[in-house]
């Protein structure tokens, strides 16, 4: 549902241009420009015991590997280490490395591509199916019994309703039929 309330804390168009040039990490040349450099930066982290322990905990909690790789890479984009393009390119390597960590820990990881939702992005069928599955059984049977003509009738009734006429009060407004 779209809310009509204005986003007060959102950025104003052109706000990014109000800061001094090169004052933000993402407005400077990136530290790692290629996938090779990014892989060289990320891989040693998987040898760090603390990192691996924390990562194993997150995987065990069922957090998808795609989400973890997104968090990892987005943080580094914000710090100006690499671009978002390199982040997307390097993410399969990170996911594979995380699967390796999960294997070592004997955990079955959630990769994040299992859901059928990713195959039907942009289609309403999955969302409708989920919404219907949430309804109690009796209600879903009632839904099935509704004929397809029902929404059409509603639409036709809406069309027949006369539009409210605004009262014109200007000097040049046509005089009423009094």
């Amino acid at each position: 549902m779209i809310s009509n309330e204005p986003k007060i804390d959102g950025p104003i168009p052109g706000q990014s241009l109000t800061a001094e040039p090169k004052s933000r990490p993402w407005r400077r040349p990136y530290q790692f420009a290629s996938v090779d450099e990014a892989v060289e930066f990320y891989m040693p982290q998987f040898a760090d015991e603390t990192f691996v322990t924390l990562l194993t905990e997150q995987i065990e909690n069922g957090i998808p590997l795609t989400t973890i790789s997104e968090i990892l890479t987005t943080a580094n984009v914000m710090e100006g280490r690499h671009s978002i393009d390199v982040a997307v390119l390097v993410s399969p390597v990170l996911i594979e490395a995380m699967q390796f960590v999960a294997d070592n820990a004997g955990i079955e990881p959630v990769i994040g591509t299992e859901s059928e939702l990713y195959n039907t992005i942009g289609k309403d069928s999955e969302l409708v199916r989920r919404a219907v599955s949430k309804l109690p059984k009796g209600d879903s049977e009632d839904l099935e019994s509704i004929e397809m003509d029902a929404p059409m009738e509603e639409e036709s009734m809406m069309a027949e309703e006369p539009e409210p006429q605004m009262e014109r009060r200007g000097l040049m407004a046509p005089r009423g039929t009094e």
Partner: protein
Amino acid sequence: MSIEFAKAYKNFQKFEEERGQRNMPVAPASKGLLSPRGGSSRMQSQGTTELDKVADYVQQIRKHRMKIRNDQ
């Protein structure tokens, strides 16, 4: 946003499959004297893209993973 990463990973898996099929050695259609020699010319003409590099890294990690799994 992680939906985009999941989509990117799925697309990468598709790319990997296609790459695997592409790199399969193709048997020459004919074995005559005038038939084209070898199937390597097509492989050599393809440049290495960033995505190929990523696929190579993933392959290396996967091999290592399988090796450790088999040892266990």
